[in-house]
């Protein structure tokens, strides 16, 4: 046996996918929250002006 197979690139790709998906999901949560907060403020202003 020459030791373990050289699979470092697959290891890096695996963890890249894990943190990539996690990052995209977190960014989508933040972005949706910001958009909804802006909508809520605009609608509240409209309601006040009516």
């Amino acid at each position: 046996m020459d030791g373990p197979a050289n699979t470092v690139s697959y290891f890096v790709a695996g963890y890249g996918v894990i943190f990539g998906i996690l990052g995209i999901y977190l960014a989508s949560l933040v972005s949706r929250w910001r958009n909804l907060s802006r909508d809520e403020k605009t609608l509240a202003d409209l309601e006040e002006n009516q």
Partner: protein
Amino acid sequence: MGSRPKLLIVLDGVTVVMLLTATLLVFFYAPMERVMGAVQKVFYFHVAAGWVGMISFLVAAAAGVIHLIKKNIAWDRIGVAAIEIGLAFAMMNIITGSIWARPIWNTWWTWDPRLTTATIMVLIYFAYMMLRAGIEEPERRARFGAVYAIIGFLSVPLTFFSIRIWNTIHPVVIASGDPSATGAFDMTPAMAQVFLFSLVTFTVLYFDLLWHRVRLGILADRVEHLKLKLQS
């Protein structure tokens, strides 16, 4: 994200610390498997992501049952949040599994029972998101979501037990011993510690994300309510 409750701020902090610790343990503490090499370390977060996906679909099914009994829209918010997060983790599980399979099985994909049932499970929940988006009336949408989440959950135990029911090359982590499995390994105590810590970390991460996603649902409902109020 808005003014968070103190407990959620604490949970966010604990989650970040645990995730960082789990990553460092995987990278520097878990020993290198003597045949597969570094790619074996994908296993820790791969299994943890699969675990969270299944827990999440269970939460959605339970929320569906409670919604049908209590007719409270809050349970629908929990249900849809759980399925959305479950899908993200299930995708993580499938893609990392494919990356691991390339050097170990010499293929990115094979229609093995575990891979096939996991794919069907993910497609069932993707369909949930699409079908749900097509229903305008909130009560009807919530009722549909509840029934779908309960029936869709049948795919979860089928996926979990597929490697025990059918002949498969997918390794069985707990109570292994199937000689036809390719890529199985015996866990050393250090590997078991990292594995258990990763499972706990991902469970904490899941409940942290669920809380945030439910808050987002509450905000979305508030905006929807304001829109309807202005239209009438």
